[in-house]
């Protein structure tokens, strides 16, 4: 640790030591067959919703009652819904929103959790105590009922300002994020508590680094592993939550075909048109399953016990 004397030297050192670490992580991750399966399926789904609508150019909102509730056929690979709209086109378009909600809500949760956890762990004392009480309070809130309550009360007013679609997106992302940062805060706090006593932190502090610089450049990279795993799993949770809200009829408006919304619409036609439920349901299931497998694989690959750590 005496080596870490000048900033430039420390930067060189970290660039040298970080490369083999990520290579080792990839080495371990590559051996996990289920995680690779997850990556493959998820890549396929992401490519599908990003590129799909450009190749498969059937309109999502073309109403044709003569083709209502048709089972899958050559013309409509995933069949049609009760209005005769093409289900595949709707799923490809709706998937964009489902995935976007997942990623955006994860970013909200991770940023909130990291900042709160970092401040609590770095400063300790009364601030830590207060922030952790605050975290406990959020953990004690009943998630789904509170989500429903907030959407019920704020959906229309926010929609009136930002537009129904953008308003719902904003609201859903923010509320899911705000209700899911607690585990990240605890993980970051725990890492920071043990890291801040290390010699290298004392060295940087002695060099006169400001608290934010220490947290961001020196502590955060070392606390990253559990956050990456939590972030991955948070995307899955957020997608599932959004689908649940839409399924209960409280998510996006009817003309925005998220996967959950499509299941909500399918409920009433379950006897005559089961394909309306099966395809969007499978899409949610496969997305969440592959994200969970990737998260699990990352957890094993990033396991600190077998990690090469230079700190």
């Amino acid at each position: 640790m005496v080596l870490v004397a000048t900033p430039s030297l420390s930067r060189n050192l970290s660039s040298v030591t970080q490369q083999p670490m990520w290579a080792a992580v990839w080495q371990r991750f590559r051996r996990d067959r289920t995680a690779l399966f997850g990556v493959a399926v998820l890549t396929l789904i992401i490519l599908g919703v990003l590129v799909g609508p450009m190749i498969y150019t059937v309109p999502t909102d073309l109403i044709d009652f003569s083709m209502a509730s048709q089972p899958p056929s050559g013309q409509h690979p995933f069949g049609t819904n009760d209005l005769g709209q093409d289900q595949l086109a709707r799923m490809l378009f709706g998937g964009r929103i489902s995935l976007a909600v997942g990623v955006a809500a994860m970013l909200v949760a991770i940023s909130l959790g990291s900042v709160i956890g970092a401040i609590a762990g770095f400063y300790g004392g009364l601030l830590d105590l207060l922030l952790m009480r605050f975290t406990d309070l959020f953990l004690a809130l009943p998630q789904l009922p509170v989500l429903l309550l907030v959407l019920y009360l704020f959906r229309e007013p926010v929609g009136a300002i930002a537009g129904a679609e953008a308003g719902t997106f904003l609201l859903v992302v923010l509320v899911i994020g705000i209700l899911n940062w607690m585990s990240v805060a605890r993980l970051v706090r725990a890492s920071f508590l043990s890291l801040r006593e290390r010699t290298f932190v004392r060295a940087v502090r002695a060099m006169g680094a400001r608290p934010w610089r220490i947290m961001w450049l020196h502590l955060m990279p070392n606390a990253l592993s559990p956050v990456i795993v939590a972030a991955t799993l948070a995307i899955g949770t957020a997608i599932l939550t959004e689908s649940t809200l839409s399924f209960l009829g409280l998510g996006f408006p009817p003309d925005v075909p998220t996967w959950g919304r499509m299941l909500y619409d399918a409920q009433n036609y379950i006897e005559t048109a089961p394909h309306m439920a099966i395809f969007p349901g499978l899409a949610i299931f496969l997305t969440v399953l592959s994200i969970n497998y990737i998260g699990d694989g990352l957890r094993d690959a990033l396991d600190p016990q077998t990690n090469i750590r230079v700190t």
Partner: protein
Amino acid sequence: MPQYLFKRILISVPTLLAISLVIFLILALAPGDPLAEIANNPSISETVRENIRRSYGLDQPIHIRYVKWLWALLHGDLGYSFNSRSPVIGLILQRLPTTLSVVGVAYGISILLAFPLGIISAIRRHSILDQSLTTVAFIGISLPPFFTGLLFIIVFSVQLGWFPFIYDSTLRVNDWASFIAQMRQSMMPITVLVLFQTAVLMRFIRSSMTEQLSQNYVRTAYAKGLPGLLVTIRHVLRNALIPVVTLIALDVPTVFTGALITEQVFRIPGMGALLIDSIFRNDTPVVLAITIVYALLVVVFNLVADMLYAVLDPRVQLR
């Protein structure tokens, strides 16, 4: 123990207060007038409207409204439903038994299934049995309950015609035939919940058991010649139970959330269905009351979890 219990209950009082404040504030700060319908009605004059506002206490400042609301809440007075004009507490008590019976049965079955499966999986780690069990559990936690419910309806009601897919709440169990009918209609909703919950619990038990199995005391027990089953049950399981029991208690609120969705899929008239219906009918007092009831459940089960932890692990009391 009594001292710990007392302290722990004292801690949950501020938590409950804080939660009630958060929920009240969400409601109070929400844009929009709860009396919007009356406001838009041209036949109601300005003075009548003011009188109605005053009768609901809406003319008072927010902190006074909170204290009044909380005080009423402590007396079990949850207000009146906008929609049915009956007391909210009555509506909830009417729905609660249905939800509790579905959740209770499902959770009981899940625990009975998850324990043997989790233990076997941990002991025979990396065997084919373990691999298939973990895979099934993984699929179980990734399957959204609303999709499982719809799949069950498609397969077992529509295709095979085994079970009815609308739950008949007027059914009274008074003879063998009605008992069978009750069993048949409860089968699918309970299975959906059991599938999800068993998967979650099995993963808890497996990881907790695995952690214990590599400890030195297990090797000692085997080394002194104890039979395998005895080591598993009396030594490993007992220690593995400590985190598991806590997790089971902490997980109970999730079951209620799962039940909320299942009730919606199978049209079971429970608490969750009441919540969703009230949201669509803009019945604010009922929505608020049910959210509070769910919050209460979370806090109570957190308390139970800590109590159980203290019973199982004597070291906790020394804190």
